[in-house]
């Protein structure tokens, strides 16, 4: 590519026009305009439609020519392929620097589409216009209150940015963002990467001050080496989490050498990602969990982890998972053991995992969390059992035989759950160390006071200790990244 793509304008426009707006709520040209208006974009919004004077209260213009000079710099183009190419010079004349092309019918559709895609890129390059897509679902930029996409949802504001080669996988992650209250900065469905490819999005997120964590779903790479270079440049400063789709077909690889026959696509891709210092995730859910952890928690300084549990079995499972990882299930320091003794009857585990064995009273957990996390040898904590008391509260609250006493107890349990969540959030902040809470209750009962307090505060609540261990391991690896240049 001969010119630098202008993604800064795409994600931070002063004004946007939906080209090919529609009156029909089932059509892309309507949904895009609707979403832009609904998310509260504060810049200029225009829409073109030759037949209708007004859509959703926006006065439509007959054509791009009627858009006032210098009022917009970005276009959301919801036209067919030929019309899209034809409208670019008119948009450039109005000052449009960047556009998103929704339409399919380009390279993905065969020979004619491939020719059209070449033309699209040539025209855009000659106009020095940045083109995202084609064949994509749009983009989101929460710092600009901009939801320029033909799908849902609009996520909460935050510092996680996503570039995805699949629109649906992007939507899935935005759904997770909304459900788990993890904020998003930018998100884009990159489509066919005709002009701007994945490496350029990663580089942009790398220098974007609103972005702290990057996730990308990748299938095909227009330029693998440039992708590797982009990961290497960005991974020094920010975690980049990569999911790969389409790794099974490997038949096309000619192997004249023994070495070549060993070099499967999957193996080389994984080598490239990890050698660059980026992070591989096995699927979009794992990628999102990793990203949520990076986005909401301080990096651990080392690999030493303490498990604190009120739920015996889960403690054992977690210890097993840690022993299979590159984390260190540290030995409980003698001085810490002696201090914990003062809060618990003698039956507690006296070991890591710290299993309270039901010996806790009103203030035990809120006291133990800062005590343990604050110990100088401890790098991180996994806390298990949040929501168990809230579970009892739910039963009492729903009980057909409730009494004033059960009601009182239920309220006590609920207030305790909130205290635990607060102690976790505060201690993590005070000591700058991550605490990973894992409980299925975050999913099974979203009203449970413990997990809910955590999620409302924008903290991640992991649904299983295994995923918490993996995310913590990814953070510890990143914290210890030894690759070139960092």
């Amino acid at each position, binding site marked *: 590519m001969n010119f630098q793509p202008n993604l800064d304008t795409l994600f931070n426009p002063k004004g946007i026009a939906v080209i090919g707006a529609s009156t029909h709520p089932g059509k892309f040209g309507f949904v895009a305009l609707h979403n832009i208006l609904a998310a509260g974009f504060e810049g200029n919004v225009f829409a073109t439609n030759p037949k209708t004077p007004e859509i959703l209260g926006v006065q439509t213009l007959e054509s791009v020519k009627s858009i006032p000079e210098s009022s917009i710099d970005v276009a959301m183009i919801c036209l067919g392929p030929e019309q899209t190419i034809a409208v670019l010079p008119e948009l450039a004349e109005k000052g449009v620097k960047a556009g998103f092309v929704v339409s399919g019918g380009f390279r993905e559709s065969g020979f004619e589409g491939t020719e059209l895609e070449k033309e699209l890129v040539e025209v855009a390059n000659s106009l020095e216009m940045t083109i995202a897509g084609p064949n994509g679902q749009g983009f989101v930029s929460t710092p600009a209150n901009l939801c320029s996409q033909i799908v849902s949802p609009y996520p909460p504001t935050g510092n996680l940015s996503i570039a995805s080669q699949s629109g649906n996988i992007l939507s899935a992650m935005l759904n997770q963002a909304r459900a788990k209250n993890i904020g998003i900065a930018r998100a884009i469905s990159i489509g066919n990467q005709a002009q701007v490819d994945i490496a350029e999005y990663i580089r942009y997120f790398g220098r974007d001050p609103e972005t702290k964590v990057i996730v990308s779903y990748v299938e095909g*790479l227009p330029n*693998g*080496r440039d992708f*590797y270079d982009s990961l290497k440049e960005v991974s020094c400063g920010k975690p980049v989490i990569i999911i790969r789709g389409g790794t099974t077909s490997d038949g096309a*690889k000619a192997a*004249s*050498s*023994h*070495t*070549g026959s*060993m*070099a499967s*696509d999957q*193996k*080389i*891709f994984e*080598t*490239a990602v990890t*050698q660059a210092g980026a992070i591989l995730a096995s699927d979009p859910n794992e990628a999102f969990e990793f990203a949520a952890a990076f986005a909401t928690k301080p990096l651990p300084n080392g690999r030493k982890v303490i498990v604190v549990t009120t739920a015996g079995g889960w403690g054992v499972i977690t210890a097993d998972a840690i022993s299979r990882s590159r984390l260190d299930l540290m030995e409980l320091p003698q001085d810490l053991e002696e201090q914990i003794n003062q809060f618990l009857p003698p039956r507690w585990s006296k070991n890591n995992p710290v299993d309270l064995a039901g010996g806790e009273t009103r203030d035990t957990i809120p006291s133990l969390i800062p005590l343990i996390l604050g110990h100088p040898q401890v790098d991180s904590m996994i806390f298990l059992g949040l929501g168990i008391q809230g579970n009892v509260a739910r039963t009492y609250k729903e009980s057909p035989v409730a009494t004033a006493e059960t009601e009182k107890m239920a309220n006590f349990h609920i207030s305790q759950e909130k205290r635990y969540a607060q102690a976790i959030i505060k201690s993590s902040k005070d000591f700058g160390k991550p605490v990973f809470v894992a409980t299925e209750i975050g999913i099974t009962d979203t009203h449970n006071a413990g997990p809910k307090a955590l999620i409302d505060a924008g903290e991640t609540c992991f649904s299983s200790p295994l995923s918490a261990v993996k995310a913590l391991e990814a953070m510890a690896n990143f914290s210890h990244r*030894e690759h*070139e240049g960092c």
Partner: protein
Amino acid sequence: MKSLTEFESKRLLNEFGLVSCKESVAKSFEEASSAASEIGYPIVLKISGDGTEHKSELGGVKLGINNEADLSLAYNEMQINNSEVSEFLICEHIAGKREFIAGYHIDRDFGPTLMFGLGGIFAEAFTDVSFRLLPCPREELLRMVHELKSNVLLNQFRSEPDVDLEALADILEAIAECGLADPSIQAIDVNPILINGNRPIAVDALVIKL
């Protein structure tokens, strides 16, 4: 695609610092015999020249030849079985219990890569290889060696000493530099690398050019 012969491949790699077994090309039995005396028995006899990339399958490798009489027998047998072969390779016999493989390959997406892996008879049953994109710093070469699942073989093993890891990294560096120096090189196989005492020695190599 054109392959260099084993002899040519090793000479090219030697220029980049590859440590390989002592060897010599012979076009007659007299030359073979004198080369064997110079290298010292036991030696290995191999067919050489064009079309011998898959020499093992052609019955073109005879290990552990201990004296001139055995050399004569092996030479005649090989000559009968491979009538088109015009030259032979006389190589130092390298003893070693541990076998590794290494290579260079240009990936269609990511460009030049380096491979290191477990070699020997189990390598076909357990694929245990690590890769790096090239160029990369020497620390990455040491890291890729440790990434093997069978990395215990690099430590003391069945009364054999720790492998000289710096020497192993030298071999990997030589392969990488050789591949990167000539864009017409498509692939390099160094198979096997035998661990003789603590010293890794390249015993066979193949350079494939465009």
